[in-house]
C-alpha cells in the first residue's frame, strides 16, 4: 500500500511516498536521511503533543489551557480528549503544574500552561514590592 506525506523536518517540505511491498517499508521522494526517518515514524506510529483546555471552577478562568508534556500516540488523541473533557480543576494552578499524571498510561503527564488566576500577572508588580 502506498502512502503520501509531506516532510516537515525542514522548510523544503519534500513530498514523500512510502510503499509496503513486502514486509519492508520503503521511502521515496526524500532529499535527506531525516526525511526517511520522518516518514518511517509517521507511517508506523505517529506521535503528537496534545494541546487543549480543561474546565475549572473559577469564574474568571472558565477554561485553563493544558498540554501533554511530550508526545502521545496520535491514535489516542480522542480517547485522551474524552478523559480531559471530564476534568474540572478546583485548585489554583500555575503554568507547568500537573493536571493529570501519566495520561492514559502513556507515561506522559498533562500539565497546565496558564494560571488559573489570569490577572495574576498584573499583581507581579505588587508581589515584587512585597505586598
Amino acid at each position, binding site marked *: 500500500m502506498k502512502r*503520501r*506525506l509531506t516532510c516537515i523536518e525542514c522548510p523544503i517540505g519534500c513530498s514523500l511516498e512510502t510503499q509496503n511491498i513486502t514486509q519492508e517499508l520503503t521511502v521515496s521522494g526524500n532529499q535527506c536521511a531525516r526525511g526517511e526517518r520522518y516518514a518511517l515514524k509517521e507511517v508506523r506510529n505517529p506521535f503528537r503533543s496534545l494541546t487543549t*483546555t480543561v474546565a475549572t471552577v473559577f469564574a474568571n478562568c472558565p477554561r485553563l489551557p493544558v498540554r501533554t508534556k511530550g508526545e502521545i500516540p496520535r491514535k489516542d*488523541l480522542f480517547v485522551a*480528549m474524552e478523559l480531559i*473533557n471530564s476534568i474540572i480543576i478546583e485548585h489554583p494552578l500555575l503554568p507547568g503544574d500537573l493536571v493529570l499524571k501519566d495520561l492514559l498510561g502513556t507515561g506522559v503527564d498533562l500539565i497546565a500552561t496558564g494560571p488559573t488566576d489570569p490577572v495574576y500577572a498584573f499583581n507581579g508588580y505588587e508581589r515584587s514590592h512585597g505586598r
Partner: protein
Amino acid sequence: MHSLKKIRKLFDRAGFKEIEVAEKHKAIFLSGNVDHWDRYLEAGYLAAGKGYRGVVNDIQVRGLIPDSFTVPSHSDKSLEGRHFHAAVVGGGVIGAAITRELTRWQIDVALLEKENDLSRHASGRNNGIIHPAFAAPPGSLKARYNTLGNRMFTQEAQELGVPLAWPGLLVVFPSRMMHMLMPLIRRRARQNGVRGVEYLTPEQVRAREPNIYNKQQGGFFLPEGGIVSPYKLTMAYGENAISNGAQVFLQTAVIGFDLIKNQGGNRIVRVNTNRGSFTADLVINAAGIWADQLAEMAGDRFYTIHPRRGAIAILDKKVTHLLKYNIGQLLIPAGKSKGGGVTPTIDGNILLGPTAEEIPHREDFATRTEDLAYIYQHQMFLNKALRSDQVITYFSGNRACTFDEEFVIEPSSYVENFIHVAGIQSPGLTAAPAIAREVGRLAAEILKKTMALLPNAHFNPCRKPLPVMSALSFEERSRLIKENPAYGKIVCRCETVSEGEITDSLRSPLGVASLDGVKQRVRTGMGRCQGGFCTPRLVDIVAREAGINIEKVSKSGPGSELVFKKTKGLVDYSSVKILSEGGKEEESHD
C-alpha cells in the same frame, strides 16, 4: 384620467396582450403571467400615472418563487384579549414617529414590529441624509412632506436628543451644458420651497470640496442638506413614545384582521397576530415593504410595493476628513433610479452609495459583487481621495416603492378605521416628522368619531439621550467614570464604546438583548474590525444583563444565536476518523 380602454391599448402595443387590466376600487389591477421580473416592472410602470388611485400588480413571473414575509418563530398569547385605541403596524422610522405622535393624546397605543428590533428594514439600511426637497416633483406628496419634514428636523432632533448636522448637499454637473439648467433648477427650488440655492463654478466647487473629482463642471449647493443616524432616530422615536405611555411589541407580526360591515363601510374589529388577537379602534399601516399585504388583509389594497435595492459601502473613519458635504451628481434624465453619491455620516464615517436596483424579493438583504463594482465605478469617483481599500463593510436595504413612485398617506376609503402610510421611500426619512404630524391629525379625526379624545397632559416630547463617551470631553468622561466605573472600561476598541454605555442601552426603555440591538444603539462592532474583538465580550455582557444562558444570546433574535453549547463535558467523537497510520492513502486512479 385615461380610460381603461386606452390603457388596454397601451398594454397591447407594449406586447402585454395576455396581461389582464381591470379596475377595482378606482385602482388598476394587473394580472397574468410574464417571463421576467423586468417585464413585471414594465407592466406596472405602464399602468402608473394614468389618474387612478394606484397600481396593483398581481402579474406572476414564471419560475420565480412568490415572495412572502418572514413571520417570527416565536408565538404566545401575550396580546390576547387586549384593547388598544390605536395600533401602528411597522417599526420603521415612520411607524415609530407616528406612535410617538399619537402619545400626545390620552390613548393606549401599540407599535407592532415583526422583527427583533425597530428599524431592521429600510430605516436601518439607508444613508441618513436629510434631503433638501429638490428631487421630488413639485406638487407631489413627496415634495410637500419633504419640505415640511426638512424644516421640522432641527427641533425634532433636539427634542429627541439625536445628533444632527447640516453639512449641505453639493450637486455637481458632469457636463458643461448643465449650467444652462440653472434657471430651471432655481425654479424647481422655488416651487418646492428649497432655500439658499447657490450656483458654483468649477473653481468654487473645488474650493469648497478640495477632493472633488477633476472633471466636474461646477454645480450648485443646497444648504438644507442634513445628516442623521436613521436607526438612532427611529430608536429615539420609539423610546420617547414608550416614555409617553406607548407600548412596543417586537417579534409581533399581524397575520390578519377580523372585519365587520358598517354603514360607513368595513371596520377592523380584531387584529390577529402571532401573539394573540386584540381589538383596536384604529389601525395604521406603516408596514413599509409589506404595506400592500397589510392593506390586502384590511380589504383595501390599491397599490403594490416592489423593492428597489440599495447597497451602501462604509469607509474607515480615518478617511472622514477627506469629505465635507453630501455629494451627488446631476443626472439627466433623473429617472426613477437615482442612486446616491458620497456622504459623510453623523457618526463620522463616509458612505458610498446607495445603488438602485430592482429585485423581486423584499427581504433579500444580500450584497452582491456587482454592488461594489457599481459603487466603485459610479459613486466613489466623485471624491478622488477615496479608495476601495478604505471600505470596512457594506450592506443593502430595499426601498418600498409603488409604481406611481409616490407616498400614499390617507385614511382608507373603504375601511373606516384604517390609515395607509405606504410607499414611503426617499425622501421618507426627511419626511418622517411631517408625515407623523399629518397621520396624527388623521388619526385624531377618526378616533374622535367613537371616543372623547383628550390631550396627554404628561406628554413630554423630550428624550434625554444616554451618554456617548466618545463624544464627550476628557473632563466629562472622567466625571462619568467616577460615577460609574463601567464607563471607563472599553469593550469596543474601534468605536471606543464602554461597558457602561452597553449596559445603559440594554437597560433603556427599548433595550434589545441582542448583539445587533446593542450595535444599533451604541455602535459596538461598527468599526474597522467589525466586531472581531468585542463580539465574545458582548456575548457575556448581553447574557449577564438579560439574565439568559449564553446559548440564548443572539445576533438579531431567535434563530441567530451565536453559541451552540459550552466546550468540555460529554463530547461525541463517534464521527471522527483518526488514522492510526500517518500520511494520506494514495488515491486510486482506476
